[in-house]
């Protein structure tokens, strides 16, 4: 127990130390740098696995989670404690985070072309352009190779900190450190304006959520007097919070705090309407995308809101609370909305980005309707297959870049799916793993993890009668399957549409091995959560996941067991298989982006979708530009310079003119000329006159003195007479 606690404390540290080591000492040495980073991630992985194993094998683990706390501060008479805690939820999150992080670290070595020569024209701040070698142009190593590993180390530290935290404050610390890392990594190729802007956008958009979250934390801290999960999620505290009125009529403290915290998630997990940063985040190197989309950042948002579920459901007594309704609505909208956009994207990573938003919407919606276990389940499975998909797409891009370098035609965008085609033969490992990931995302029945988790969400929605959510998610699931198949078809199937695609090349083992590992999880992890009542295979494997996670919730929250129903099962089968089939049928003969079948079908709607419903433009027009103008013109130039300084200047001017008037009308004529100069002139005149007495002739002086003597004598006589 002691050892376990110690290890929990130590889990976040290796990546952090790796970060400092690389930044301070080894940044010149690529090999040492990546060794340290991967070693750090490996140590964290080992620690996480040890803790996870302990969690599995400890009896009554849910009632007695691991962890301890130390006093961080004293506020007034009360100590403020921070600590670590591993309960079932964080154990499972730690599990997938550790695995995906390690895989991404390993993958990055290959992705950044370790072992390749230095580029001839490569500059720091720009992606590598390739190097000439033996008459060929080959991939060149990333010029800021070591720096990348430092940054992802810090990123991993943030995520681990967030997961092992036993309180909202340290969770927030990890949360914000990830925000910084996303800024640094999305803007990794900071020389490009697009990357620079994307980084700024990501940071600022998530910060919108963060400040609300900060308020939520403050509010919760105020009302509960603590931020420790254990202390808040007690029956008395939750009931107290549920019954205390907040500032907003009709909303309890728990509800308002929950919504404020959820806005943090909206930012971090890119929920509607703060989703705009996530697609742009594709400007970063692909491992970063995987990091953000699967292992760390967006998962963190969902993890936090799942963690806060007891608060969100407080006062609902099984019914949906206001906060949960908000979640359900936002989640459903996001799921559908992002899925529609994904349909119209041609960039291989952008499709995945929107699919992430959409899938996160699934989780949020699931939580909103109270499907706690389903939300966690989908979070985990999604992490695996989305990491897989991103790394796979990175592998594809890498292969395409190889082709681009070969032909030397740099106008070809290696990320545009219409420039690909037929890659399955060139890159078989990538193809098969990507296929697994894609099927998992689509919810391909029975064998993929995505099916089980998505099915559970739909089943929950149906069983509890949230039909709006159910149908919205079902349509979204159909679209998911459709665009996934579209992507697979355009990328891997058919014939190569460009020369570059013909010369694409399978990527090195450092990249493909992580793909294979993740593919295993993308399939196998679904089997830990097969519902007991599932026809045919239900009950063969115990529904371990449900038991494990559901027990992690405080005992006063009750779940009703879901009765099996055919409707959701059939629905999920139909949408998954139907979507995949439609996708293949529509796109198997696609040729160019202009002839996109969907484009013909939808017409102007396609343009709307392709332009992401013009959200970026809208925000730019309504918020970003006006605020920039407001800052510069109104606040600074008008308010400060004109009004306040103007007032001060007026006062100064008034004083100045008063002074001038005093000087010119009073000081100069009256004081100077009359009193000043006048006195001087008089004195001078008098002196001129009187100085003649001062002759130096003593006898003359004496005559005057004697006159005085006479006067004295005379006066004496006069008085006595």
């Amino acid at each position, binding site marked *: 127990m002691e050892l376990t606690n110690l290890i929990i404390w130590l889990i976040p540290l290796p990546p952090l130390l790796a970060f400092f080591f690389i*930044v301070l000492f080894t940044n010149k040495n690529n090999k040492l740098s990546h060794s340290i980073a991967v070693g750090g991630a490996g140590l964290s992985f080992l620690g996480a696995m040890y803790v996870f194993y302990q969690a599995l094998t400890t009896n009554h683990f849910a009632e007695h989670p691991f962890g301890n706390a130390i006093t*961080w*501060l*004293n*506020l*007034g*008479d*009360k100590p403020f404690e921070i600590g670590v805690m591993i309960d079932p939820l964080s154990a499972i999150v730690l599990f997938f985070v550790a695995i995906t992080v390690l895989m991404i670290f390993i993958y990055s070595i290959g992705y950044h072309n370790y072992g390749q020569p230095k580029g001839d024209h490569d*500059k*720091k*701040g720009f992606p590598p352009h390739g190097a000439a070698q033996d008459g060929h142009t080959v991939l060149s190593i990333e010029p800021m190779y070591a720096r990348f590993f430092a940054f992802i180390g810090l990123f991993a530290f943030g995520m681990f900190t967030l997961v092992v935290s036993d309180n909202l*404050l340290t969770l*927030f*610390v*990890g*949360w*914000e*450190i990830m*925000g*910084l890392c996303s*800024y*640094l990594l999305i803007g990794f190729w*900071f*020389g490009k*304006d697009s990357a*620079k802007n994307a*980084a*700024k956008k990501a*940071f*600022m958009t998530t*910060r*919108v959520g963060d*400040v*609300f979250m*900060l*308020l939520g*934390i*403050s*509010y919760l801290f*105020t009302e509960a007097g603590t931020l420790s999960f254990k202390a808040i999620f007690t029956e008395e505290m939750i009931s107290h919070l549920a019954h205390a009125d907040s500032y907003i009529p009709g909303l309890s403290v728990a509800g308002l705090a929950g919504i404020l915290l959820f806005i943090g998630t909206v930012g971090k997990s890119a929920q509607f309407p703060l989703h705009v940063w996530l697609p742009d985040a594709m400007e970063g190197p692909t491992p970063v995308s995987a990091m953000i989309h699967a292992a760390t950042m967006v998962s963190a948002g969902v993890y936090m809101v799942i963690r806060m579920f007891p608060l969100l459901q407080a006062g609902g007594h099984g019914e949906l609370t206001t906060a949960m309704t908000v979640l359900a609505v936002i989640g459903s909208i996001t799921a559908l909305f992002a899925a529609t956009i994904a349909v119209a994207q041609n960039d291989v990573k952008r499709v995945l980005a929107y699919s992430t938003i959409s899938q996160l919407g699934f989780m949020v919606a699931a939580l909103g309707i109270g499907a706690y276990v389903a939300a966690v389940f989908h979070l985990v499975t999604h992490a695996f297959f989305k990491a897989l998909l991103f790394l796979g797409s990175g592998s594809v891009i890498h292969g395409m870049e190889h082709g681009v370098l070969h032909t030397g035609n740099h106008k070809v965008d290696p990320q545009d799916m219409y420039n690909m085609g037929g890659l399955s033969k060139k890159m078989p490992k990538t193809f098969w793993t990507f296929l697994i990931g894609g099927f998992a995302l689509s919810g391909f029945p029975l064998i993929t993890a995505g099916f089980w988790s998505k099915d559970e969400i739909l089943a929950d929605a149906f069983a509890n009668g949230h039909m709006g959510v159910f149908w919205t998610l079902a349509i979204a699931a159909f679209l998911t399957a459709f665009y996934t198949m579209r992507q697979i078809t355009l990328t891997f199937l058919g014939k190569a549409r460009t020369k570059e695609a013909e010369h694409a090349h399978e990527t090195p083992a450092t990249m493909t091995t992580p793909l294979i590992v993740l593919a295993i999880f993308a399939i196998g992890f679904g089997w830990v959560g097969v519902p007991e009542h599932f026809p045919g295979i239900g009950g063969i494997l115990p529904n371990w996941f449900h038991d494990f996670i559901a027990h992690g919730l405080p005992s006063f929250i009750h779940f009703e067991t879901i009765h099996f129903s055919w409707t959701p099962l059939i629905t999920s089968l139909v949408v998954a298989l139907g979507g995949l089939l439609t996708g293949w049928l529509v796109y198997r003969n696609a040729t160019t982006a202009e002839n996109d079948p969907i484009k013909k079908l939808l017409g102007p709607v396609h343009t709307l979708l392709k332009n992401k419903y013009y959200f970026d433009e809208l925000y730019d027009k309504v918020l970003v530009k006006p*605020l*920039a103008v*407001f*800052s*510069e*013109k*109104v*606040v*600074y*130039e008008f*308010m*400060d*310079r004109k009004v*306040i*300084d103007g007032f*001060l*200047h*007026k006062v*100064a*001017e008034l004083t100045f003119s008063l002074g001038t008037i005093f000087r010119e009308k009073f000081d100069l004529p009256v004081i100077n000329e009359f009193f000043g100069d006048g006195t001087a002139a008089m004195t001078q005149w008098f002196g001129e006159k009187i100085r003649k007495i001062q002759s130096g002739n003593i006898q003359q002086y004496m005559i005057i003195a004697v006159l005085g003597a006479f006067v004295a004598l005379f006066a004496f006589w006069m008085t006595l007479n």
Partner: protein
Amino acid sequence: MDINLLTSILFTPLVGALIIALLPGKNKKTTRIVALVVSLISLVMAIILWVGFDGAVANADGLKFAQEFVWYEAINSTFYVGVDGLSMTMVLLTTLLTPFAILASFSITDRVKAYMALFLFLEVGMLGVFMSQDLLIFFVFWEIGLVPMYFLINQWGSPKGERKLWGGITVANRTYASFKFMIYTMAGSLGLLLAIQMLGVVFHTFNLPEIVAGWNAMGGEEIILGWVTVATAKKVAFWAFAIAFAVKVPIWPFHTWLPDAHTEAPTAGSMILAGVLLKLGAYGFLRFVLPLYPAEAAASANIIAGLATAAIIFGAFAAFGQKDFKRLVAYSSVNHMGFVLLGIAAAAKMAGTEDAVIALNGAVLQMFNHGLSAAGMFFLVGVIYERIHTRDLDEMGGYFPLVPIYGGILIFVSMASLGLPGLNGFVSEFLVVRGSWPIFTFWTALSMIGLLFTGAYVLKGIGKTLHGPVNEKHSDHLTEINKRELFVIVPLMVMMLWLGVWPGWLLDVINKASMALLEMLG
């Protein structure tokens, strides 16, 4: 009369300034070294003081290391210095920042002797304010601080730029800025002086604890000075005090001297100006306004909180709207000091509650933190300015590959200034928000706009200097940060990280002092 450690800290820089004044002026290096050594001696003594602080015995007024002797017998003013947790924190900050500022000004080559002497003199003024427990002494030091800063800006400020005033009058920017700084602060101090005199006349002493006790013993209807009730006198004196400190903090809308002064001051001047001088105002609120006028402060807390929020929001906006890097950082001070004020206002309003303690803790910690990060930011701006001789953000860009170490440091310090968790700024901002939320819910919520735009302007600063394609205009002159400069910034960074990860060592002292202060009020 024996000189204790506290008094030694106070007067060491003065002795140093005299030594420098007597040294032959030609040897600039010696002058610099002497100044540095003197400030380091002060620092070492302050650290000794800090270490011994917990164990030291407090006197009847709750002050440690106190020393008192008659200074001006006719009006019963004593030289009374002593520290509690608040003052100790500020003394530590002052003595900490001064050596770094002096080290940062080693690049000054013009009239080094006068510069260094003024700088040390400035330290005396600042330390005096933090240590004084006698109103008259306090006022003397308060004004002493102004003079060196005026000359530092006026004589060693940035030589470029003019400002047009009314009627076609044009003055050099640094003249304008120094004049504005001086006059503005002096104007604020006038009321303060009058109010202090009034207290002196009423109580026949300037001893702060005695005056506080005296006020509290008086009923509101009692007539003092023969014609005015205590309640009225208190109200007037409260505003006199509050406005003097408000100008110094500065509270919106008294803030416009700050961007000018900060922008035009030499690098080290800006460091000290932002790092310590602004704290004088906030400290004034804590040390004088709250104890002397608790009821009035509580009554006006809403107004102060509103103005603090305005400072937070408009400071952030104005910073975001800047093209001048240094001015951007200057406005960030307005933004950050707004949080200090918000915390103080919350504490004033609800003295006696736990929220107030938290808010006050946050405010004091924010003072310290802002001292570190603002000094760091100004220094970094100065580093780049010394090389390329412009502060215009539009003329920079893409410098990260050219100066990777500098770039990393800039990002680090910017993040500390932004309030990134794990670095110092976050802890204090969180405490302020937490403490103010139940007291000024609306203002706190509104201030989040400012917090959001803090991010915006910090990213603007980083983005416009480091990121993007390289702007070739000045990049030839750009060289990596040198060793001396690293010596300045690295200790500050270590402090930032340390305070972000483990603020307990500082906050414990602050916490005790806050509780003592609020107990007195509540």
